[in-house]
């Protein structure tokens, strides 16, 4: 059983009178990539900022690698690395110097390790240049390297794929997957890129209006939020509807000259094929329609915005 590396327990936060985080509790385990989803203003960044020490919670506890931040802040923070919003470094210093400065704070100043990280994020050619000459994507890469310079046990990334090209996104995904699944790091990613999250994450937590709506593996979320199974048959839908008649009329969800969509399970597929075949319908393809993460997310958050 995986160990909980990040535990948030009954966290509350107010901005003035606005109660922005309401009794939030969640755990991110070692060896998994945890996706943190939610519409704009839901409280994702606020939660992450409280974990990272930018904001002070009104109440609740945060445990990082088993250490309560209230009791041993430095000990807890030594295990965490992250990027909050855009990675910002000292512009008049080189990328290398920035990494060294950060490593120095952690007591892990090791040239060889820094070289490896630089190689890993693909910044070897430009690491000695001043940060002010970097593009957003380059800053993102160096930001990832900075977050990893001290071999953290918990890695938190807020919108990590911002500014990255497709190959960069894939590289990042591979890095995170490697860290989580090979190295046992607990990775928490907050993003609006649902397609990416679906590819990357093992579990997702969805937050809306400061309330955590669900935390579960992606597959379970999809299955739970999918209200019914749909079988999609590529055929003349109108003719198919006539053939299937009264028995299936109520379960036909849509029909046109190219396809017919019927609320049915896997076991109904052979029956449908036989019926349509007997009725003379020409079948070009059959598939089970799966609910996407986007649809599940939207259903759960009731139409919240901000989806890319």
């Amino acid at each position, binding site marked *: 059983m995986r160990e909980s590396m990040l535990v948030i327990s009954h966290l509350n936060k107010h901005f003035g009178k606005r109660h922005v985080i309401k009794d939030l509790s969640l755990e991110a385990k070692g060896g998994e990539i945890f996706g943190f989803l939610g519409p704009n203003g839901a409280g994702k960044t606020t939660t992450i900022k409280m974990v990272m020490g*930018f904001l002070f919670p009104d109440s609740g506890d945060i445990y990082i690698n088993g250490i309560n931040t209230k009791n041993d802040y430095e000990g807890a923070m030594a295990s965490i690395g992250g990027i909050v919003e855009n990675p910002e470094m000292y512009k008049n210093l080189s990328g290398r110097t*920035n990494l060294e400065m950060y490593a120095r704070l952690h007591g892990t100043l090791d040239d060889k390790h820094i070289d490896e990280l630089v190689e890993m994020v693909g910044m070897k050619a430009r690491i000695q240049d001043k940060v002010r000459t970097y593009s957003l994507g380059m800053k993102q890469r160096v930001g990832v390297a900075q977050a990893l310079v001290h071999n953290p046990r918990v890695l938190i990334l807020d919108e990590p794929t911002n500014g990255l090209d497709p190959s960069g996104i894939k590289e990042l995904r591979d890095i995170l997957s490697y860290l989580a699944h090979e190295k046992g790091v607990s990775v928490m990613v907050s993003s609006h890129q649902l397609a990416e999250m679906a590819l990357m994450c093992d579990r997702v937590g969805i937050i809306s209006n400061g309330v955590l709506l669900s935390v579960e593996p992606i597959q379970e979320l999809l299955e739970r939020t999918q209200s019914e199974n749909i079988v999609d048959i590529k055929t003349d839908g109108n003719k198919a509807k006539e053939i299937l008649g009264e028995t299936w009329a109520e379960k036909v969800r849509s029909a046109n000259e190219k396809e017919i969509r019927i609320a049915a399970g896997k076991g109904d597929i052979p029956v449908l094929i036989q019926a349509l075949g007997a009725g003379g319908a020409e079948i070009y393809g059959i598939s089970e329609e799966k609910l996407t993460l986007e649809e599940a997310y939207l259903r759960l958050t009731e139409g919240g915005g901000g989806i890319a």
Partner: protein
Amino acid sequence: MRRFLALLQNELIKTSKRKIIIIMSILLAVTILLTGWLAKLAQSDSGYYWYLTEEDIEQRINNAKSNCEHMEKQLKEEAKQKQDSIEPSEKHKGDDTQKEVLKTIAAPVSKMPAEDSADKVMPDMEKSTFNVLMEWQYNLNELYMYQTMKEKGLLSMEGYLYEAINQQAYLQSIKTVAKSEYVLEEYTQYCEYELKNAEQELTLLDTAVQSEKYADYVAWKIFDVKTMAGISEEDIKRGVEELELRLKIDPEGNYYRDYSLTEMLNTITTKKNALEEGVVKDSASIRYGQKLTKGEREKLSNEIAVLNHAIENGTFDPTIGEIASDFMMSLGCMLIALTVIILASSSVSQEMATGSIKSLIIAPCKRWKIFIAKLSSLVMLGLGGIVIVWLSALLGRLIFFGLSDAVPYVYAVSGKAHTIPYVLYTLFYLLVEYVTIMGYVVFAFMLSTVTRSTAVSTGISIGVYGGGRLVTAIMNNMVKWEMLKFIPFNHLNLSDKLFSYRNLILTNNDMNILNMVFNNGPVTGTLFSVLYLATLLFTMGWIAFDSFTRRDI
């Protein structure tokens, strides 16, 4: 501790790469070199106009001779014309008659008050014999003077010998004209004051010029004071006493023109009188006329000891080298102050604006350590800057003026003078200056942390630094409220308070007028100022600390 040192190292790395450090370093070097060079130029120029060459003197002698001949010729012609216009029957009456006739040539002149030569009324100068006589006398003066200078091999138009030669030549020229056949009654009346004691005066002057001794010069000056018209007996007595004292202090006449010595002697006299009478004699003091306290007595005797030390060692007048190095240090301090204030005012706010604060907050360091590291890096940078100013100013002085005439700082305890070597004293002075600079720096840092806006914090900090003391000085000079002593700027002259004996020497120096204007605030003790500043620094630091460690970022 390791993390704190890592934080501190990072802060120093960040700051050292900022452009302002490079700009201010260049400015500092240029300022110091320029100041030293200009001061050196002023020093060498100061004697420029007062030195002649042998050729100059020869030329002036020739010019004067030529002019004298021309004047005499003119006078002869005028006399001949008149002679020719006299009736033949009158010619036999001789020179006296001719003189009478010449009188008629002269334009009418107003009667001058004989007792006050300062109010002499000049006759109508246009085309009159009187005018020619004055011109002749002037050129004779020049002739005699330059001839004597040539004899003596004197090329300098400074010094007591020159003054004696000049006066000697003047009196001789007047006598020559007064005894000539061309002289007018009006001229004799005009020069009556000078002619009155001319013989005695010339005797003393001849001795002084012959011997070239300062003592003989002083003897003449004493005679001059005693015979001066229009001054009281009391003033004569004081003048003579001062001359005698000056001779005693300065037997070689090295400082014969030094007014600051005179002022210092007067100051010592006043303070001694106050001690003897046991009463406050400082007219600027609110306790004027009251009985001296024990502390005031001690202070007076210490001040007298310091002043006497200055007179005994000839250090009563700051040299150009000292003034120049003071300037270098003041300007250097100002540049360092501006640099560190600008760095402090952007220390937190700029990191917040750019977002680089995130990497600090995410690091495993408590906020108070980050805060202390930032503040410590500013303190260290400022201290480093002050040391660089000190070394640069010393080097500048060494290059342009040398250190041989560097004057130690003199202080006194229980009426006995002690010294601190110049090199050490300047370092201590700058370190105390640095403490006052830190007041502005902590203020700027506080603003940066609280407002989180670099523009606001920099603007206010620079404004306060540039205008705070000026506005306070204006208030101090316009009103005398007790509450003024709680204005922070009235305590930022800590270096002047701790090294207060320095001002005794500088008080008479024109360069110190600014100091007098800016230090005319309410009188508060050094301990009060130190405690007040410490409280202020602590309060500002605490406000900044609380804002940084307890506010959301």
